[in-house]
């Protein structure tokens, strides 16, 4: 999965293609190490490297909107979740009951579909021919701050 995501960003880097390839290759190596160790921190680092690779290739690609970002985002979540699952189940951890695994899969599916739908809606909105400006930027910043506030509130109430 990590290899597929890394390879998806190759070919659009031009002069900086080796840098993109190195980032993607590093992500694969770090993910392999995370699964062998097993280590959650290394898995997070591998996902971080994939995001960096994608953003670099995106910056180098030009100004057009990349519709593949929705699938890439879903792929990142799947890769991270699969890595977390492998690390969690590494010996001597007990094998979870089927009901525990199915609850996790259902929650993952819901998150994936909802996230991809939200991401797709965001990209579609960005593709609309709307005038830019400070007002639109402020709306973007407000949305970002709003989501951060929501997550913080949920985190505080759950602890």
């Amino acid at each position, binding site marked *: 999965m990590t290899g597929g995501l890394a390879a998806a960003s190759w070919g659009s880097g031009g002069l900086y293609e080796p840098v993109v390839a190195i980032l993607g290759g590093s992500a694969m190596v770090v993910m392999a190490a995370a699964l062998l160790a097993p280590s959650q921190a290394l898995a997070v680092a591998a996902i971080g490297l994939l995001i960096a690779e994608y953003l670099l290739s*995106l910056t180098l690609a030009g100004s057009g909107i990349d519709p593949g970002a929705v699938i890439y985002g879903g792929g990142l979540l799947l890769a991270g979740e699969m890595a977390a699952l492998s690390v969690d189940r590494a010996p*001597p951890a007990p094998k*979870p009951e089927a009901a525990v695994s199915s609850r996790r899969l259902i929650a993952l599916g819901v998150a994936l579909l909802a996230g991809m739908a939200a*991401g*797709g809606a965001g*990209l579609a909105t960005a593709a609309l021919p709307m005038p830019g400006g400070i007002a639109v930027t402020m709306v973007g910043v407000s949305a970002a701050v709003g*989501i951060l506030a929501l997550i913080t509130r949920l985190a505080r109430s759950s602890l």
Partner: protein
Amino acid sequence: MLLAVALGRPEPVALAAPMLAALVLGLGRAPRAVITATAALDGERRVEGGESILSLELSSASAPASVAVEVALPSGLRTKTASFQVALAPGVTRHLEVRLICARWGVQRIGPIQVTIRDPLGLVSRRFELAHRLKVRVYPRSETLRTLLRPRHTQAQAGNLVSPLRGEGIEFADIRPFLPGDRVRRINWRASARRDSLQVNVQHPERSADVVIFLDSFVEVRDQDSSTLDLGVRAAASLASQLLARRDRVGLIGFGGTLRWLVPGAGTRQLYKILDSLLDTDVLPSDAWKGLEVLPPRTLPARSQVIALTPLLDGRTLSVLSDIGGRGHDLAIIEISPVSFRTEPADGVGRLAWRLWRLRREGLRYRFQSLGVPVVTWNAGAPLEAALREVEAFRRYARAARA
């Protein structure tokens, strides 16, 4: 999203959206269920090698929950799995069983038992520990002994040992002339007819002996599975149970960093007192000099037999055993060989040191044997009875040599 604003591109939003959705879902469904958990054992006393079952009961009063249970076990208890991940439905009680193999003697304390409640994606968890701690008293397994050491002296109490003294009993000893006060039923009519005067039978009375088991716990030598102390405790348990079954009075001296003693006594209650005392035996480092004077006099009754179980590694034990032998007690030393727990070094200097160490031990044994104290080496894996028979053989040989 802030990155999207900074870069002026919408893709980072699409990239982050699935992860944000997972985060919101995980935090929104954080575990709020009230979990009730209890743990119980099917028994608190087991014999080494036996099985005990730890039962766990989990229930969620309100909401469904994914629960992980981890049971911390001491090294003396073994199991295939001591952790679980289960799903709890509201109002349904789940029963979990952990089959514990009692691998080593001792007081084995189970716990802490940790219960972790997680959201479905495992992002948020809540953990608590079960307050009550459980313990299993694992008694050392005893070896069946068909023969026991015959004590040199017996005591006044009745028992199963034929005393060398003469009096009333079952075993015939001799005949003697009739004296006023003798019972008529003791008259040996045939002997009286032959000798032309009344003769009475004299018997050996059946008496018991006072036996003190001396367990050295100053130091131990161990490998992965066992140690000299493990062997000593098992041997002490075997000897105590068999001696008490012979109706002897048995006492215990645990001589080590912590001094423990039990004055000789008889019966099942004494057996459990000895076993409970053995369970608390441990090697505690101590540099304090301890001699025979630290023992209460009642722990070593006059004319008692002392069976010492020791690896013969600590000078304090050697000194005390010399004193016990010197005071006229019937002392037998069973040396729990530390040699079988170590392998001979491969390098030249190591091999030389190894040989010197073994020579010194040989000299130590000879020192006791020259004082008339039997010292036999008992190796791990060998039956204890073989060592006891060797002690008897030494006594026979020593008696013949003295004669």
